[in-house]
């Protein structure tokens, strides 16, 4: 049997998936606590032993992994104008699967440098200026960063005219310094692919080792990418298809976790109605957004606060009752609901997290009154016609009523300017395999695609 071992070193759990390549089936999945403090291999072995080994022993033809352990890929991005190159840099970092700790705009100050030191990013992404546009900011920020007392990997994705010059300045202090293409080569044109690849490259040549994950690489071939990048890659494959194997078309994937809620959309998001004008920075076809204040456990307090009345109205509970349930979540992040009330609370929290995260992910429609009547201006993606919404992440997998939670992703007629899907079908990543399939895509894209189509079930 030709088996492939796929591993996701998560922040809390190490998840393994073993796939039979020829039969395109999952042989087994298991998870155990991630052991970053001791040896990352301990957790992996603990997970692996849970899957019964065949008599002739495992014959792994490939062993691939992704990781969000040890804090994930932490990045700081910087650009010139907040809404333009700084925003483009942020999106490039998110698309590369990073946790974006901070985004700076304009010239970096000494206070900004202090913030960089205290937040300890893994990679800095430096942008600024369109190609042939502003040159000063990239050079000045490179100069500023070369005064840092710590050594960091830097990816430069700014004005191409001065990128090499900025790289030379940075190399006095930092290593590696990689030049990619500009995240905004022309005004209003977003081009994140090159920066994404450069970040991924630095991730597996430098970051893995810096985080002590290289111990696993003696056993594995390679830790390919950060986990969110694997999920985004799987989503792209599942949406677009591969060769003769068709994909499912444009889609959204919502991942509700303990600390964050991630939303991925693989869609163009052009206006669905005539005479709507698009404004603002264009969005990537494969877009990822991360909401750090919307999580089921670590960020539960922030979620209750953000959801506010919506949560209370949904539950119909008193303040005290909500506070009591919230206390339980905070006390024990691993808690699995025991009582009916706990289940109800978790469903409500999941629903709010999905609803708010999708609100922020999708575009908005604004009515502008002109002397010629009302005109519509769209910012971001119009996902009203999106046919597919896929749920993944703990709360959705372990709850009997995943669609009730996913319904938070649906268009609300009371908020018609928020362009959420109006008539999407819900699917569930029942076996929790999306990250693994993003990895499998690297070696067997057709198989990964067919397996997703088999194991992602319709609700």
């Amino acid at each position, binding site marked *: 049997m030709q088996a492939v071992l796929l591993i996701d070193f998560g922040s809390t759990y190490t998840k393994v998936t073993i796939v039979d390549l020829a039969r395109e089936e999952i042989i087994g999945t298991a998870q155990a606590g991630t052991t970053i403090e001791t040896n990352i291999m301990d957790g992996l072995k603990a997970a692996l032993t849970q899957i019964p080994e065949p008599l002739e022993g495992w014959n792994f033809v490939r062993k691939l992994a992704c990781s969000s352990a040890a804090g994930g890929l932490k990045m700081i991005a910087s650009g010139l104008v907040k809404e333009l190159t700084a925003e483009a840099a942020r999106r490039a970092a998110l698309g590369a699967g990073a946790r974006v700790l901070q985004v700076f705009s304009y010239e970096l100050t000494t206070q900004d440098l202090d913030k960089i030191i205290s937040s300890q990013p893994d990679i800095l992404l430096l942008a*600024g200026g369109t190609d*042939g546009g502003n040159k000063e900011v990239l050079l000045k920020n490179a100069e500023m960063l070369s005064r840092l007392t710590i050594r960091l990997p830097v990816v430069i994705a700014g004005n191409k005219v001065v990128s090499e010059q900025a790289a030379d300045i940075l190399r006095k202090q930092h290593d590696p310094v990689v030049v990619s293409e500009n995240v905004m080569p022309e005004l209003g044109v977003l081009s994140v692919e090159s920066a994404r690849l450069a970040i991924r490259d630095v991730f597996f040549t430098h970051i893995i080792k810096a985080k002590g994950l290289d111990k696993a690489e003696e056993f594995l071939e390679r830790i390919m990418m950060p986990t969110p990048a694997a999920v985004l890659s799987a989503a792209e494959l599942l949406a677009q298809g591969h060769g003769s194997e068709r994909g499912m078309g444009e889609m959204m994937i919502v991942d509700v976790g303990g600390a964050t809620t991630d939303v991925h959309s693989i869609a163009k998001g052009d206006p669905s109605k005539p005479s709507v*004008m698009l404004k603002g920075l264009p969005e990537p076809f494969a877009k990822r957004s991360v909401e750090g204040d919307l999580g089921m456990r670590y960020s539960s307090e922030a979620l209750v606060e953000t959801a506010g009345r919506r949560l209370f109205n949904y539950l119909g509970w008193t303040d005290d009752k909500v506070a009591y349930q919230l206390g339980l979540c905070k006390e024990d992040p691993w808690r699995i609901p025991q009582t009916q009330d706990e289940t109800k609370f978790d469903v409500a929290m999941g629903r709010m997290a999905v609803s708010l995260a999708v609100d922020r992910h999708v575009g908005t429609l604004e009515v502008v*009154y*002109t*002397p010629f009547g009302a*005109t519509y201006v769209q910012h971001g993606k119009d996902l009203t016609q999106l046919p597919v919404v896929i749920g993944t992440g703990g709360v959705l997998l372990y709850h009997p009523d995943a669609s009730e939670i996913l319904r938070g992703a649906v268009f609300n007629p009371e908020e018609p300017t928020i362009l959420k899907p109006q008539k999407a079908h819900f699917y569930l990543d029942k076996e929790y395999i999306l990250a693994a399939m993003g990895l499998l895509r690297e070696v067997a894209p057709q198989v990964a695609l067919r397996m997703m189509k088999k194991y992602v079930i319709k609700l």
Partner: protein
Amino acid sequence: MEQKTLVLGVIGSDVHAVGNRILDFAFTQAGFKVINIGVLATQEEFIHAAIETNADVLLVSSLYGHGEMDCRGLREKCQETGIGNILMYVGGNLVIGKQDFESVRERFLDMGFNRVYPPGTMPESPIADLRRDLGI
């Protein structure tokens, strides 16, 4: 000779797209690099575009008569954001009603615009002015 960069747009809640296209074409033909931010452009969009592209000129159009309200404070915002010396041209149907154009021109010059063009101006005249003002 380095190509000069212009930010072109129709300011405010104005949706006149045809003239905007014509100006884009005319200035591009004349050898300028045109950053066209299109219609419904806010003051901030003009400024942000100019900062990122290191533009030399803001070319502001207004066709719907609210130009005076929409343009007020633009120079001050440029100063605040570090591009206070950028050239600013404005043209179109800047005000409503039959007003004496000289008084309109005065008002816009007071707002900090370098050149103000009356309705019906052909692109040739601002192009000639640009060459003069930019020393090319």
